[in-house]
């Protein structure tokens, strides 16, 4: 079956969805959004790829082991917590401050973003593991 229209539209739309996911992720601290919804939106983009192409093609396009991704995400979340143990402040105490970066200039950074990144990775990992596992089953 020829899926030219679906595949062409997917090629354009997937990037917009992923950008929207990233926007939601970084807006989380000040506006509605955050790691959970951003992860779901990103997984939604990957699911669109799965709909337009087959599982093998998507695996070569996005060569990620999603189960490992869950582990990496948990590691991020746990690491921000255990940072408190290292600096002898209560578990999950976050640090923040303004940092001068070369290109972006004065940026306010917060370790809660790293925790959120962990949530993001776990959500993407879990959603994609569920969908791929069900999809592969005969």
């Amino acid at each position, binding site marked *: 079956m020829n899926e030219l229209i679906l595949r062409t539209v997917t090629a354009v739309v997937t990037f917009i969805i992923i950008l929207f996911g990233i926007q939601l992720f970084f807006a989380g601290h000040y506006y509605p959004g955050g790691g959970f919804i951003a992860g779901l939106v990103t997984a939604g983009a990957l699911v669109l790829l799965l709909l337009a192409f087959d599982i093998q093609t998507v695996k070569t396009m996005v060569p990620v082991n999603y*189960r*490992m991704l*869950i*582990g990496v995400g*948990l*590691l991020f979340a*746990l690491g921000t*917590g*255990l940072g*408190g*143990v290292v600096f*002898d*402040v*209560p*578990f*999950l*105490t*976050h640090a923040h401050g303004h940092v001068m970066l070369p290109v972006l200039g004065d940026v306010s950074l917060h370790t809660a973003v790293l925790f959120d990144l962990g949530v993001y990775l776990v959500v993407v990992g879990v959603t994609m593991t569920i969908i791929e596992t069900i999809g592969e089953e005969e």
Partner: protein
Amino acid sequence: MTNAVIFPIAIPLTTAVILIFCVQSWKAQKAVSVVSASLLIAASLWLVRLVHHEGVQKLDVGNWPAPFGITLVSDMLSALLVLTTSVIALACLLYSFFTIGAKQASMYYYVFFQFLIVGVNGAFTTGDIFNLFVFYEVMLMSSYALLVHGGTKIQLQETMKYMVINVFSSALFVIAVGYLYAVTGTLNMAHLAVRIPQMENTAVLTVISLLFLIVFALKGALFPFYVWMPGAYAAPPAAVLALFGGLLTKVGVYSILRTFSLLFRQDIGYTHTILAWLAVATVVFGVIGAVAYRDMRQIAIYNIVAAVGVMAFGISLMTEESMEGTIFYLLQDMVMKTALFFIVGAIAYVAGTNQLGRFSGLLGSYPLLGWAVLISALALAGIPPFSGFIGKALIIRAAFEQGQLAFPLIVLLSSLLVLYSVMKIFIQSCWGEARGCEQKRIAPLYVPIVALLSLAVLYGIGAEFVRPYIAQAAATLADPSVYIESVLKE
């Protein structure tokens, strides 16, 4: 150190994450699991010592002060339960290495195992009622996964029932927390304990407390909410079953103990009478089941039900002595039930069946296993030098001192029937001519069995040594002002 309280939760959590990455290597999984379980025991011992010397330990997670952030609180009761959990975890790991093979391990068995420990330790340590719910879910999700792990037909069937009943009770839990929050406006347990006595409308609080009782009775298998248990616990392999039997229902008992000693004291005459009736009914139905079955697993499962009933009866009395008895009994019962399921699993492994009467004469070929059954029978029933005695004795004495007669007598009689039910296993499997048993190598299984049994025996003999710790735990329960002040200070 500030973070002493977090280690019993953080160590298994870190281990679980590490194990996700080395899921392909069976050897690495074994090594990481054992090292982390030993670290966990060391951390919990340290925590017990810290609480003993410096009083209730609390940790305001994220450095937010007490009623606003999540507070983790370790009083002596929590610390002792966390220590017992760590010991059981190590024993179950050693048992799993022999009975759960490399194939299961590559399907994340040990990851789920560690997450279960995270949930149990978290539930024992948290000082926030919604956080308690979250740790319950961590524990239950892992228990679903472990229950269905292996995917035999009976496991699929029973996991379905177990999940439905637990999803229902979790929903009820959320509703109960919602009601409590609507009435009091706080979720921190110490802050709740301050607010609840100030409330004018105690009737609605009594309703909420009964809702919590139903929730925790569903988790902890009290009458009439234990019906899910005989089926669900008969499905998984022995190592998983020992973990469930040792830990899961006890979290429900702990939650009842915590909420009904700290929060819901506004109408003790009503709520605790209901608890006493449920408890005694649980004991009665538990021993009926234990006596009725010829299936070793079912005997052990109904023994859990009976023991949960005894503990709930101890909680319902609400004196310092009965609390002490309950804690004594709770700790030994966690260890003994795990040991009992280990033994039953080992017997079923050599006999190839759980049905008594199809084999006999175990004592000839497996003397150590046979005597282990006898010791566990004596310890479970509460014969004096062994561990089950002092807890039950304290509970029954507290009941007689309150002028009760029928209930403590029922509990006493239940000990006899519990003894009968486990002696039935001993007599029918160990005595007689040798038949139905194959010669199999079960030496590695003896390590956790002997370790737990000797721990239980030492616990019974050295009751004077553990008494100060347990008295400290009971004192905090009987007088929650210590708990409240240490959480809400500053």
